[in-house]
């Protein structure tokens, strides 16, 4: 690639000073960079998801530190832990927004439950359960800092919920640390979590 073209792209040379044979290439690059800069429209529910997490952070700012204190096994086996955010987070109803694939709607009163799974080497982890119609894709967990601990904050209404984790879209993992289990009818056990509203809202 000609030095003059690099200079042009760096803003160090005007197009008019390019040799004739390079002006076509410069024009091609201009079109290419216009395409690179074309705007992208994110899905409209991104804002809602961020604000749910912000609300949870406001209610309990130290939840990440709490997660970091969870004991980890020395062997590389999956160990799941469900940490219930102690304070209830009462949300204002979200403003309706158009969306192609929205996450489950958040009730006016919801408890945020921290699902966590230690699965080093996993490519994807999700939690599937009665609260998301047993969709293995609707509620992904993320490993933000690459330490092998996958987490997600999920708003749940009061009641009893069954769930499992799905690793790499194929391996169904029962939470070994759940307090209760029920037979899922397929030879596996669903973990059970009961969510109850606190007697008074969090300040």
């Amino acid at each position, binding site marked *: 690639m000609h030095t003059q073209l690099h200079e042009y792209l760096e803003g160090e040379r005007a197009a008019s000073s390019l040799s004739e044979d390079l002006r076509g290439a410069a024009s091609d690059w201009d*079109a290419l960079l216009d*395409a690179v800069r074309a*705007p*992208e429209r*994110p899905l409209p529910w*991104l804002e809602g998801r961020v604000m749910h997490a*912000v609300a949870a952070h406001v209610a309990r700012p130290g939840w990440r530190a709490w997660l970091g204190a969870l004991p980890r096994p020395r062997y590389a086996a999956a160990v799941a832990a469900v940490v219930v955010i102690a304070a209830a987070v009462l949300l204002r109803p979200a403003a309706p927004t158009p969306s192609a694939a929205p996450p489950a709607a958040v009730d006016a009163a919801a408890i945020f439950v921290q699902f966590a799974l230690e699965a080093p080497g996993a490519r994807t982890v999700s939690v599937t359960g009665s609260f998301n119609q047993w969709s293995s894709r609707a509620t992904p967990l*993320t490993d933000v*800092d690459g330490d092998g601990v996958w987490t997600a904050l999920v708003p749940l209404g009061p009641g009893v919920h069954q769930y499992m984790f799905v690793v790499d879209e194929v391996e169904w993992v029962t939470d070994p640390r759940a307090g209760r289990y029920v037979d899922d009818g397929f030879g596996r056990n669903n973990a059970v979590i009961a969510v109850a509203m606190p007697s008074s809202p969090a300040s």
Partner: protein
Amino acid sequence: MEPDSSGATAPDADDETIIVRIRGGDAEAYRHLVRRHQPRLFRYAVRMTGDADVAMDLVQNAFIRAYERLDQCREPGRFGQWALAILANESRHHLRRRRRYQPLDRHTASPSPGFGPARQAEQRELLDILSGALAQLPVDQREAFLLRHMEGLTYADISGMTGASVSALKQRVHRARETLEVLLQEIR
């Protein structure tokens, strides 16, 4: 711009005003920052990863991290660039955690508003071609190229964001252009 009489932050208040409100306890005001800056951050994440779903997760995490560290934002008036730096870090870590090279899914871009249908189609085709070419760049070259030519940042700004020296960044951008030139000629 001053908040309206109800006490809520006006959506068109500047970033610094909004951050002052947030630091004063108005967490809900963060929504305005998310809404304002998500297009830019999402575009960057899509170009870096080629995957809209991954990009959404990265952008979401970046905004959450930015909120948690808002007290560390030393220039509230440049929140967008600061959040972009957080996202660039997230994206880099995500891409380096890939166990093996994975061809990037070609995300279908939204055409620029105001362009006619023919121009939009041409731009979409160009972006498709470019997405494939970007996928073949090493992560650090792709990152430097996008921050320089898509975001229009100076090398000093990029150095501040990535920790790489200006001379190293210039080399990366130079090599990225050389590689893209060759790839694009082959594809076309």
